[in-house]
């Protein structure tokens, strides 16, 4: 069965520091990769997605992610975080074999320290 692993349940970082949120997936077929963000008391919002082409994907709010097929990873990065980035971040995968159902990671809470 396909799965998505987000290795860190929480990541505390200081404001203006860089951050990387890790995501690994297990799949033997071509996948499509997504990062969603959930701000406190809000719904899930698409941050960015990888479908094909350039492995470096840029999203909203200054986030980017890099697809690494050999390492089956899709880590999310931001060079300088802001207090408003405090949220939970979810990595998700879909592919033809799952009828494009989104398979989700457990989420990573990004905690920004002043």
């Amino acid at each position, binding site marked *: 069965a396909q799965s998505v692993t987000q290795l860190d349940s929480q990541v505390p970082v200081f404001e203006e520091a860089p951050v990387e949120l890790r995501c690994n997936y297990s799949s033997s077929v071509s996948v*499509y990769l997504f990062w*969603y963000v959930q701000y406190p*008391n*809000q*719904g*899930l*919002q*698409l941050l960015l*997605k990888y*479908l094909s082409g350039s492995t470096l994907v840029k999203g909203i709010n200054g986030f980017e992610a890099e697809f690494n097929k050999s390492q089956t990873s899709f880590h999310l990065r931001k060079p300088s975080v802001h207090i408003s980035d405090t949220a939970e971040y*979810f990595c*998700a995968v*879909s*592919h*033809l074999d799952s*009828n*494009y*159902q*989104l*398979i*989700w*990671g*457990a*989420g990573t809470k990004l905690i920004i320290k002043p």
Partner: protein
Amino acid sequence: EPEVTQTPSHQVTQMGQEVILRCVPISNHLYFYWYRQILGQKVEFLVSFYNNEISEKSEIFDDQFSVERPDGSNFTLKIRSTKLEDSAMYFCASSDSRGALDTQYFGPGTRLTVL
């Protein structure tokens, strides 16, 4: 910007009661989804709906659950005879196409608490 809305934001019910969670998808979208997230656990797919019928459902979506599009705007999830383990956040989503190119837009969720 169009958005998916869900009501209520929080629903408290007694075990064994029926609940209906409501969603208004984005108006020109054709595909609708329900997901749930039990506290501290992963988001889980429940069901997808297209052309007035279920197109996919997970193992979680058993006979206790049903979905309906009663009119041109609402999309509902009914849970019959709720159980304690049904307590979760339920998310509705919609998309205008199916497949890798679609983006699923999510509502803010309904927190269901079964006592």
